[in-house]
């Protein structure tokens, strides 16, 4: 009897000990301007969603805090022929539900990415076939030589086949399926990552807890529990950080940096993002859709395009609107992008007199009017930048009718499905693969009918030579030859002023003192690197 009560007492003491654990555990809270749109890693190709899920799911390769590629679910690889790669997979990795990770899961994931509801079909199409050699070895065939395959594989998040089959989630969920059969993966997750989803209320709160069985013991984080809250209003987000309710918020408006630095206990964490902000001009139509010039397209004349570039004082925008926190750029891609060459990066000079004389030369001495499309909730201070550009162009005689819209309406108008309905626009671009080919393929290449090439070349800029160079960039594995092609294209683009690159926008986070995080150039918060005091 005595022994029994002793055991019971001991057991309840143990239970108490177990219960008190979460109270001492490190809880990290953070806020972003929007929610992840789904927990399904294949349903949407969007930076934040994929970034958050990167803590729950993992790919064969991943980026470390400096954007270097590091082996993750693959331990090593070897290029067998230009179109055949062999990958050795990590052994002993378990999914959150305890299942083993094997080669079968990789093949299943690839097939799932190609399923109808997936938003990563383009990525799936970069692979032709995956062959299973044994449980922990695979061979990947690509349709053409692909020097950037490793970058592409980063966002191929591996899902457990058995789990997906058991929950009828073998196809990527599309929005139309949500809440019905087959959409289990939109609100549940089972990856191999260091954090597991504990609960999720869309747009309100998502809670992650530490995966105690995570394969990599060397990750720096000491966080046991993560609470993520979307807060869409910038002012509210900053206030939440200042009042100590949240450990990390992003993005922080650039104008609030000094306030964060002056306040006790918080600081602004900033750096250059890999997103390039640029201006584009319609060069394909014979007459602009929205302009006072009839019967001609002034943007077909390189002198007009150069005049625009000369008229814009990027440094003034940087100093005032961006509070010094932007990196003026002469290239369409950022220093963090594979293929960047610092020598080629010379920002366009500011010279309003030159702009006026070029306009006069081109026959527009009295200027003209053109409508500018601009998003107002997509990039850092996007609408303010457009307003400033309009003011600067006004000083050389060009009148801008500014049409600033929410991103949904803006993109619906200017993108392919809106028929590229724009004459002059502002856009920002981060190559998802962190390689320059993505820029060639989406922004520089002449548009084709199907929209698979040059799909985001909204102004229809087209130069045959750049297309040729793009094909070299796509498949050339000799780094020097590839770089030469990239540099030549950059020079052509600059000579023709095909686009007007402005700057790389800043990363802008606000962090509580003592919390250590790594700020990645792609604006992804990797919880592996979060260390609480």
């Amino acid at each position: 009897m005595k022994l029994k009560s002793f055991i019971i007492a001991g057991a309840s003491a143990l239970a108490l000990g177990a219960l008190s654990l979460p109270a001492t555990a490190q809880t990290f809270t953070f806020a972003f301007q929007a929610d992840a749109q789904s927990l399904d890693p294949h349903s949407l190709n969007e930076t934040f969603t994929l970034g958050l899920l990167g803590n729950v799911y993992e790919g064969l390769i991943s980026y470390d805090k400096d954007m270097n590629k590091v082996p993750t679910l693959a331990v090593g690889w070897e290029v067998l022929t230009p179109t055949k790669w062999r990958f050795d997979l990590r052994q002993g990795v378990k999914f959150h539900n305890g299942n083993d990770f094997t080669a079968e899961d990789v093949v299943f994931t690839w097939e799932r990415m190609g399923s109808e509801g997936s938003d990563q079909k383009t990525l799936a199409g970069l692979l032709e076939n995956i062959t299973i050699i044994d449980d922990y070895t695979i061979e990947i065939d690509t349709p053409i030589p692909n020097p950037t395959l490793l970058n592409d594989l980063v966002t191929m998040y591996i899902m457990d086949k058995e789990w997906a089959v058991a929950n009828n989630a073998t196809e990527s969920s599309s929005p139309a399926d949500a809440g019905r059969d087959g959409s289990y993966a939109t609100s549940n997750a089972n990856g191999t990552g260091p954090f597991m989803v504990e609960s999720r209320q869309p747009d309100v709160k998502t809670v992650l807890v530490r995966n105690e069985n995570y394969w990599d013991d060397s990750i720096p984080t000491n966080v046991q529990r993560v609470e993520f809250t979307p807060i869409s209003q910038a002012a509210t987000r900053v206030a939440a950080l200042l009042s100590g309710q949240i450990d990390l918020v992003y993005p922080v408006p650039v104008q609030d940096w000094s306030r964060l630095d002056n306040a006790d206990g918080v600081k602004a964490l900033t750096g250059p993002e890999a997103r390039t902000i640029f201006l584009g001009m319609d060069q394909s139509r014979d007459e602009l859709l929205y302009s006072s010039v009839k019967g001609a397209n002034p943007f077909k004349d390189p002198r007009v395009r150069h005049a625009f570039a000369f008229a814009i004082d990027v440094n003034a925008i940087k100093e005032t609107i961006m509070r010094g926190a932007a990196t003026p750029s002469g290239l369409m891609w950022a220093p963090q992008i594979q293929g960047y060459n610092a020598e080629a990066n010379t920002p366009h000079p500011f010279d309003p007199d030159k702009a006026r004389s070029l306009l006069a030369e081109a026959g527009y001495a009295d200027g003209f009017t053109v409508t500018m499309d601009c998003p107002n909730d997509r990039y850092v201070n996007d609408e303010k930048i457009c307003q400033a550009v309009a003011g600067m162009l006004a000083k050389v005689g060009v009148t801008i009718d500014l049409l600033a819209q929410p991103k949904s309406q803006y993109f619906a108008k200017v993108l392919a499905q809106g028929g590229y309905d724009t004459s002059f626009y502002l856009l920002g671009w981060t190559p998802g693969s962190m390689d320059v080919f993505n820029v060639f393929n989406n922004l520089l290449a002449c548009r084709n009918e199907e929209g698979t090439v040059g799909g985001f070349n909204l102004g229809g800029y087209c130069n045959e030579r750049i297309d040729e160079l793009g094909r070299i960039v796509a498949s050339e594995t000799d780094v020097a030859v590839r770089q030469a092609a990239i540099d030549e294209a950059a020079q052509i683009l600059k000579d023709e002023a095909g686009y007007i690159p402005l700057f790389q926008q800043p990363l802008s986070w606000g962090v509580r003192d003592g919390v250590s995080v790594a700020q990645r150039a792609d604006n992804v918060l990797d919880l592996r690197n979060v260390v609480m005091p």
Partner: protein
Amino acid sequence: MRDFLQRFFGGDLWWSFRSSPMVIVAAITTFVMIFSSAFANIVAPYDIFDLTQFNLMDSLKPPVWMERGEVGFLLGTDDQGRDVLSTILYGSRISLLVGFFSVISAMVLGIIIGLIAGYSGGWVDAVLMRIADVQLSFPAILIALLVNGIISGLLPGEAQADLAIYVLIVAISLSFWVQYARTVRSSTMVERTKEYVQAAQVIGLPQPLILLRHILPNVMGPVLVIATIQLALAIITEATLSFLGVGVPPTSPSLGTLIRIGNDYLFSGEWWITVFPGLALVILVLAVNILGDWLRDALNPKLR
């Protein structure tokens, strides 16, 4: 005319006006604000629509009495280097314009519908008043948000910015007409049965004309009171829509848009961008409301 003036200045209205200093102050404030914004292009130090007058490097200058302030910018500058005083003057112009025109069109619409309903009776009256009932049970702001959404959704994107002001006027007047209609309808129903109307009918005069001639003078008092109070409401509604981002664009800002722009700078210490337009809005609405209040009390003999 002299007769009218004499009646006015000798009357109760003038007396009650003179006896309340608050009302006098409100009237002067309203007049000054209307005048200075109507002639903003003369009064304001800068023309905010002429982009060549501003320099981005002048942006975010504080008011003149603060450190770093400049005499050229009395109330400081905004994020684009625009003079805040000038943006307030031009902004009040747009706010007042939207306010006045939406109240006037709501009034015209309401009077016409009220006349038709009161004069025809029967199912026409039933249908119109049912619509009015339904609409009255929804807050004006929600209706304005809806109508604004529908119209700007129907317009092509490039026309939206140019037509934003007209869209706002239509949206606000469509949400404000009901009260006029009800007031006019009940008066019409009373007048319709009077002998002189029937007599005029016998002579062959068009009845609506008679109604208009005899009813309008009778309902002008209440209609005027409704209009004054609604002017204040219309200005607030416009500001709210612009604050929520569905009103006029920042390139031709109203007071609400200015507050929205300034809201981004509240935490960074540039309080003047939002506080001054906010004060201008509150003062304007308050002055109009005081006038409306006084007018209502003065015209309602029961309250004396």
